[in-house]
């Protein structure tokens, strides 16, 4: 690894460089080994993003700088009964295709694959062996894009596994496919996963991704997750994300979405638990007439932090995008939404709308909301709006005047507020599931 020593190395990167040298070496193709090394040197140079970096200014990374979380080695001995129990509480009650990753690695014993023609579903490790044609271009592309993203560079260096889903052209997978990213809580480590979804032209799929840790307060872990979604011509992808990490977790997730002509993508994220959560989604509208929805809801309490960072890049004409983000912050918590919309010069007839609505409960919670519109075309319809308010006193009194306790009334109003965003989720089973998790989270909210 002498190559990286030629660069000035940021001090916070040192433990990770050391860990890279000590990781268990598995047989990997040369191109991947090269990418990993490049990623590591890039990270060594960049170090952690600091708060001067616009899209990171609302997240406190100091604890991670003080105490490095080295990538997890091969899956530690996990308590399978415990994992099964946790899974039962997280998964869709209906039987679904389900791929489970435990501590960032595929857990075949907990997964239900149900193979069928036109569908390739498996772990990233398996795809690297069997489908390099599919994953190599995506990984190489991401490695190039990651030049300015330290955590993406670190992910390239370290990702151990992930999931890969390919749907052949014209195939319609109706029932939701569930991906569960489960942290066992057995060790304090970082979990780097890299995943890829490719939808062939005219195909359709529903995806539910759940990121969770143990419910009991376990050791801190750091999830550094990157997913690339490629939606082919006229294809339709609905993806819902539920984040219910354990109380001390740092969750950084980046999703890069590429939409071809006439593609439709609906992304939704429900962020409910974790010490620090950052959900980043970058959409490239790369084909004419593509449509994109990015909706989200979060509830942040205690002294936790939650960030939603989105970028929608209208590169070609006739694209539609809409965003509805609803946030609730209570106690001393901090929530933030940063939404960037770019409309390039040639992206005429673009229709882009963004709405951020927020509730602050109590006097010490903080919410930041920041739209950023960069419009270079002249024949477009773009709008954005943001609001931050308190719980409606009149509504609280109305509920109390019907005998509902103040505590339950507050819960009902928060649920009602966030529900509007959750109800954008089209698939009924997924929507019902998310609403149930929201209700459960609200039930343990202190009055």
């Amino acid at each position, binding site marked *: 690894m002498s190559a990286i020593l030629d660069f000035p190395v940021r001090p916070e990167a040192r433990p990770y460089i050391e860990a890279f040298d000590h990781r268990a070496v598995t047989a990997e193709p040369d191109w991947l080994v090269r990418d990993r090394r490049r990623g590591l040197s890039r990270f060594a140079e960049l170090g952690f993003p600091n708060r001067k970096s616009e899209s990171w200014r609302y997240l406190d990374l100091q604890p991670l700088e003080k105490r490095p979380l080295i990538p997890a080695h091969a899956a530690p001995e996990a308590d399978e009964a415990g994992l099964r129990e946790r899974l039962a509480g997280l998964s869709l009650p209906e039987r679904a295709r389900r791929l489970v990753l435990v501590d960032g690695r595929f857990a075949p014993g907990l997964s239900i694959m149900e193979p069928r023609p036109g569908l390739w579903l498996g772990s990233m490790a398996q795809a690297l062996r069997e489908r390099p044609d599919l994953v190599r271009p995506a990984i190489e592309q991401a490695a190039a894009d990651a030049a300015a993203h330290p955590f993406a560079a670190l992910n390239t260096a370290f990702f151990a596994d992930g999931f890969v889903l390919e749907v052949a052209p014209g195939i319609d997978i109706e029932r939701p496919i569930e991906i569960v990213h489960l942290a066992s809580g057995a060790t304090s480590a970082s979990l780097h996963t890299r995943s890829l979804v490719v939808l062939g032209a005219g195909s359709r799929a529903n995806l539910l991704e759940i990121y969770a840790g143990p419910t009991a307060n376990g050791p801190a872990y750091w999830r550094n997750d990157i997913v690339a979604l490629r939606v082919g011509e006229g294809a339709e992808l609905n993806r819902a994300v539920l984040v219910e990490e354990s109380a001390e977790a740092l969750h950084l997730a980046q999703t890069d979405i590429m939409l071809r002509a006439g593609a439709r993508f609906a992304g939704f994220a429900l962020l409910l638990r974790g010490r620090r959560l950052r959900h980043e989604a970058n959409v490239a509208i790369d084909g004419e007439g593509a449509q994109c929805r990015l909706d989200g809801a979060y509830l942040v309490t205690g002294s936790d932090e939650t960030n939603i960072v989105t970028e929608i890049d209208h590169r070609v004409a006739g694209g539609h995008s809409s965003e509805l983000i609803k946030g609730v912050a209570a106690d001393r918590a901090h929530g933030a939404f940063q939404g960037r919309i770019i409309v390039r010069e040639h992206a005429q007839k673009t229709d882009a709308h963004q709405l951020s609505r927020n509730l602050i409960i109590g006097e010490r919670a903080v919410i930041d909301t920041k739209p950023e519109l960069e419009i270079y075309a002249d024949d477009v319809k773009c709008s954005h709006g943001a609001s931050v308010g308190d719980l409606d006193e009149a509504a609280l*009194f109305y509920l109390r005047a*019907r005998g*509902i306790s103040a505590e339950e009334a507050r819960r009902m109003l928060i649920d*009602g507020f966030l529900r*509007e965003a959750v109800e954008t989720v089209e698939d009924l089973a997924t929507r019902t599931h998310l609403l149930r998790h929201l209700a459960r989270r609200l039930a343990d909210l202190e009055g």
Partner: protein
Amino acid sequence: MLEIKNLHARLEDGREILKGIDLSVGDGEVHAIMGPNGSGKSTLAAVLAGRDGYEVTEGSVIYRGRDLLDTPADERAREGLFLAFQYPVEIPGVNNTYFLRAAVNAQRRHRGEPELDAGQFLRLVRAKLKLLDIGDDLLQRSVNVGFSGGEKKRNEIFQMAMLEPRLAILDETDSGLDIDALRVVARGVNELRAPDRSIVMITHYQRLLQYVEPDHVHVLQEGRIVESGDKSLAADLERRGYGAFGEVPEAAEPA
């Protein structure tokens, strides 16, 4: 049922609105409190229901033997006090049926009765819906969202029918209703008259009183009850206007 003595209340800005109200409501009685705008009618309703933003500076309110003013708003409701709002609040995202079931079950828990499950609750709803000519679709919507003025008022009386209160305070329930809606609402209220249930109707006009006959009528003026009588007082008022009590009458509200 309700014993109000020398009740004084002011707003947070210090303006005194109620200046010594005395009122006694017996079991099963229907009282009408009439008065011009700004006389303190809605403040009286708000203070009785426990809304924030009012300070009681003097006097007492005893409801079924206990001090009402010391009781939080939600507990008053669970103890059988019901306020039909003049302006029912729209609550987006909170389903009407879900809300109503939470309210009914909060009251049942308070009384030590078992909660109603979804099926039992639905049967109760169906029985009461007929009374107020309310369609099923209203139940599927968010609380009061997208309801017409008349639907909101009917929904208030429907909630009253579901909660079966001991004391109901109807704050301007007749305002904004056309004659058909007024009849439906009045029929609902009349159905709910019972020997162990008292009703206080607060109103500007005599209209509702033609359909729901009160046992007692009171005139509220500048924060005090200035005259009390039987139902003939309401007709009297209609003829003479509030001006007879030292105030210029307002133009009649179009029906």
